[in-house]
């Protein structure tokens, strides 16, 4: 996996992985600009941001590290364009780290095109950003038989809102969106607004978001699946589960299905609860300390999401680096 570093919005690595283009938007060629506008007609290319292009039949694994080091308050509004051509396969690990605890406001736009039969594993980790306010808008358009896995991991954010809109434009496209988040401080807030638009028949979508909330923190989840009249034989699942570890934490969940086709399988569910006292007693009655039993149960709660991170390096990274000390 090749690591590329973006410091305060500037790409600081010169090279790209073989056959793959990773470029600052400011430095792209007119041909590349045309390519972006072909897929995203409204793109405004005079902004800061990245252009990532994986051509047809290419496989690649990429670790993008976005680091903010600003000593003063910082405002960033990057626009990132990702084009994954037919039959390409990409594993993307995107990480956001703040080195100094200054106030940052980061408003990101991601536009992602996934070509026919392409496979995308996109995992985003935001951590150690205790004073960062982060808005991210992600638009994904998927072509025939493409497969997207989107994993969101949020730890230690002052304010984090992720808006994701996925359009399944052609048959047999699959998208899996998952999230796992832990809030610890009183005023942390994590918000996921996930919208999956089934435009074509025989597509599948699966949404699973889980959060552990502590102290006076809050989390919102709003998942919506729209099944348009043409999208027969759609399969859509949606689930959101919160564990509240304090009396003062709060979670709002709104799972929505809006269905206009008549031959579909859709289900949704949401729960908000506390640690299972029966399970805790069971573990303790076997000699396991209350503290360790709690850790086991929290790990078990997280496992459902973590087990579905299929790329081994990403899974290991999430476990060892991001999750360490969070539960």
């Amino acid at each position: 996996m090749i690591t590329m570093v973006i410091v305060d919005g500037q790409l600081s690595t010169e090279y790209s992985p073989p056959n793959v283009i990773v470029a600052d938007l400011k430095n792209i060629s007119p041909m590349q600009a045309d390519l972006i506008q072909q897929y995203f007609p409204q793109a405004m290319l005079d902004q800061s941001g990245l252009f990532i292009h994986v051509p047809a039949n290419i496989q690649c694994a990429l670790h993008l590290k976005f680091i903010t080091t600003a000593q003063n308050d910082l405002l960033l509004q990057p626009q990132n364009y990702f084009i994954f051509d037919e039959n390409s396969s990409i594993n993307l690990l995107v990480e956001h780290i703040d080195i100094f605890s200054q106030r940052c406001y980061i408003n990101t736009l991601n536009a992602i095109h996934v070509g026919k039969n392409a496979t995308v594993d996109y995992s985003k980790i935001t951590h150690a950003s205790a004073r960062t306010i982060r808005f991210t808008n992600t638009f994904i358009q998927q072509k025939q038989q493409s497969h997207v896995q989107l994993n969101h991991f949020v730890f230690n954010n002052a304010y984090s809102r992720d808006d994701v809109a996925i359009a399944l434009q052609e048959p047999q496209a699959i998208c899996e969106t998952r999230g796992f988040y832990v809030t610890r401080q009183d005023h942390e807030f994590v918000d996921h607004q996930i919208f999956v638009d089934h435009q074509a028949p025989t597509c599948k979508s699966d949404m699973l978001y889980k959060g552990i909330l502590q102290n006076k923190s809050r989390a919102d989840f709003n998942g919506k699946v729209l099944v348009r009249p043409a999208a027969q034989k759609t399969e859509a699942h949606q689930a959101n589960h919160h564990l509240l570890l304090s009396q003062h934490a709060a979670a709002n969940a709104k799972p929505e299905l809006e269905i206009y086709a008549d031959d579909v399988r859709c289900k949704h569910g949401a729960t908000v609860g506390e640690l299972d006292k029966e399970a805790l007693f069971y573990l303790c009655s076997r000699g396991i300390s209350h503290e360790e039993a709690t850790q086991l149960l929290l790990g078990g709660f997280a496992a459902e999401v973590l087990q579905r991170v299929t790329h081994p390096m990403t899974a290991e990274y999430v476990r060892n680096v991001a999750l360490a000390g969070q539960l």
Partner: protein
Amino acid sequence: MLNINNLHVSIQDEKQNSKPILRGVTLNIKPGEVHAIMGPNGSGKSTLANVLAGREEYQIQQGAVQFNNVDLLSLNPEQRAAQGLFLAFQYPVEIPGVNNMYFLRSALNSLRKQRELPPLDAADFLMLVKNKIKEVGLSENFLQRAVNEGFSGGEKKRNEILQMLLLEPRFMILDETDSGLDIDALQMVAKCVNRLRDAKRSMLVVTHYQRLLDYIEPDVVHVMAQGRLLKSGDKSLALELEQKGYGWLDINASEAQA
């Protein structure tokens, strides 16, 4: 070994009213003895088992429990386990996402730590658990699954017995372990329990049916009703109950006296 003296326990119902369940239980179990408690539904048998293991939602109103001269009621559940107490649950809990093998090793190593023994590493533990799991008649796949999740009733009970074999407790409480078991599973439970039986280990067997006591022969049989031990005797008492039911004990009359 275990001395229960005039134990009164209540629980709060949905309306926050305190409802007495145990109303003065006195019971002494010596090292090596097996005691069985039988009784009709709602008599307090399972409550007694759970109070001994340290379940929180019960309120101790009166009485004391000494376990090897330690005040058992002052200990939390994990300390009781460290003292050698083990409860085989009537309804073992499903714990999604927690690997069964990891759980078993954590439990064993927690107890070893409290007994100042070095932890078993993964390889040594694997050897040990592979041996034990054969005895309870579960396949090794069950080690890689989440604790009790999706197990059948019988498989859950076998997993309880596996924990018992691994943790080698000094005092075992079987809370209706026979319920939901077929004859083969019942004999397996009895075989495992009997193999652990020795002059230092004691046992409290809570059951509805005499059948289990054919295999695990008790030294003393008690009948519990309305939160009290009404009658005690040897194993012939269990046979008598099987034939006559509980009616002849005149449970309601004893209630009237109270």
